[in-house]
């Protein structure tokens, strides 16, 4: 029963692993539209491939340290699920030479299919970033955290994992109107991947998965 069921594992896991949003807030009243593509790396036959995972995002700079954003998960839509992320990015510390700027991004991740199939996952990302060069390119690292609020799974079984954390590192190439972003994320290194059937590529072998993402942002 193994092989083809792997798609279930892949798809459910990638729901939880979209790339980071607005590590650095937009300028005041600035707007941006972003599309990102990427997902966990898996071994598929002899090849290592990322699972394509598509999200679209809109952000608005409330002020120069606070950006509100919303994302729609296109992959989830393919399965008839409305999955949106609503959140803000707040910069709490300015960069001081080599000491990075710090931002936090609380997010509500909402998935809805029908009245019996709906979920809400709070997320909290903590980001450190450095701007450099005349284009103000960005290097960043951070920790994205997902929280599973349900205490029980199907048939009253205790839900074993309530915290899924995802260390990430990325780089953003910026110009006046466009940003291009590359990000790598280790997804759930605290959770065994041995029952997930899929051969994930991960530095931790039996735990988690390694995701890679490419993003493109148009600023207005």
């Amino acid at each position, binding site marked *: 029963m193994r092989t083809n069921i792997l798609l279930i594992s892949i798809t459910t896991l990638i729901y939880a692993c979209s790339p980071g949003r607005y590590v650095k807030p937009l300028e005041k009243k600035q707007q941006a539209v972003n599309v990102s593509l990427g997902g966990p790396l898996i071994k598929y036959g002899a090849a290592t491939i990322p699972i394509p995972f598509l999200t679209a995002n809109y952000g608005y700079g409330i002020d120069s340290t606070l950006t509100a954003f919303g994302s729609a998960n296109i992959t989830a839509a*393919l399965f008839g699920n409305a999955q949106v992320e609503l959140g803000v990015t707040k910069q709490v510390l300015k960069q001081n030479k080599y000491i990075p700027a710090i931002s936090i991004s609380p997010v509500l991740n909402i*998935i809805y299919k029908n009245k019996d199939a709906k979920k809400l*996952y709070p997320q909290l990302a903590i980001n450190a970033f450095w701007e450099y060069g005349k284009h103000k390119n960005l290097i960043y690292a951070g920790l994205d955290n997902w929280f599973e609020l349900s205490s029980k799974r199907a048939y009253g079984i205790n839900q074993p994992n309530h915290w899924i954390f995802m260390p990430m590192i990325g780089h953003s190439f910026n110009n006046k109107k466009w940003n291009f972003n590359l990000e790598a994320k280790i997804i759930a290194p605290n959770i065994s991947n041995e*029952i997930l059937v899929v051969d994930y590529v991960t530095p931790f072998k039996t735990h988690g998965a390694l995701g890679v993402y490419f993003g493109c942002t148009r600023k207005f």
Partner: protein
Amino acid sequence: MKLQMKKYILITVVITGLTSCFTLDDNLFNKSELTEYKLDNYSGDVDFHLDNSFYIQDTMVHLFTLNSKATEESNATTIYALYIGDISKIATDTVIMYCHGNKDHMDFYWQRAKLLANTKSKNRFGVMMIDYRGYGMSEGKPTEDGLYADVDAALKWLKGKGLSNDRLLMYGFSMGTAPATKLSAESYSMKPSKLMLEAPFASAETMIQDGSGLAMPGDFFTTLKINNAEEIKTVTQPFFWIHGEADDFLNIDTHGAVVYSHYSGTYKESHRIPAAGHSTIQTTMGFQPYLKLVGDFITQH
């Protein structure tokens, strides 16, 4: 500038609106097609090989076709079936209906069926196996309703040969536990007298939750109604459950143990096999100890 942004938003909305038709349902079926059945001469990948002591004479192996028609279908589908035993004695023999898993075809499961044909002694019990639609040489495309219709087609054939309910035993492995449980619980052509499940799954939802590590509703990904954990509640016949403790695909605690705990019929017995994986119960515990468990359940309860 605003016009450009509207364009981006419009594209996003359109893409989202136009989609919403995918599910993972088809991924339940990991079938392979065949142009002929080779059984003992099959050289493809199998879970285990039996030695000559388990050999079944060619005269006791019967390959034939059946017509299977689900309730809502207008035309029947031709599926392949295998009967191990003496067809002329079905009216007096006890028969195990073996529902195989989701992989490949009957050639892959031949060794397992042949092993069951050695329960207690060689050909003591007849063994019936089919390839679900889309599997092996069977026509059509696999569906959930098709699984039930195909097994029911086998039961109709057995009934036509004179088999009675009290001499029919149902055995399901992995995905095959779904039709085995459903046809034991509900009214179909025959009502098996006993139910045996090897490495059963609880439901598609449990599979998704095990796979994701999150308590996600199964409806997010599948419309499959397969739910052994609920179906078993209406099974009253004696029930045998066997599961590998090291099953890294259908976890013994989240799948098999749930099904077992939901059974409330007349008699049940469980066999947790240490160190056995999803497909290695027989090889881990040994063929004869496995056959003894199965045989004792059939003859004593």
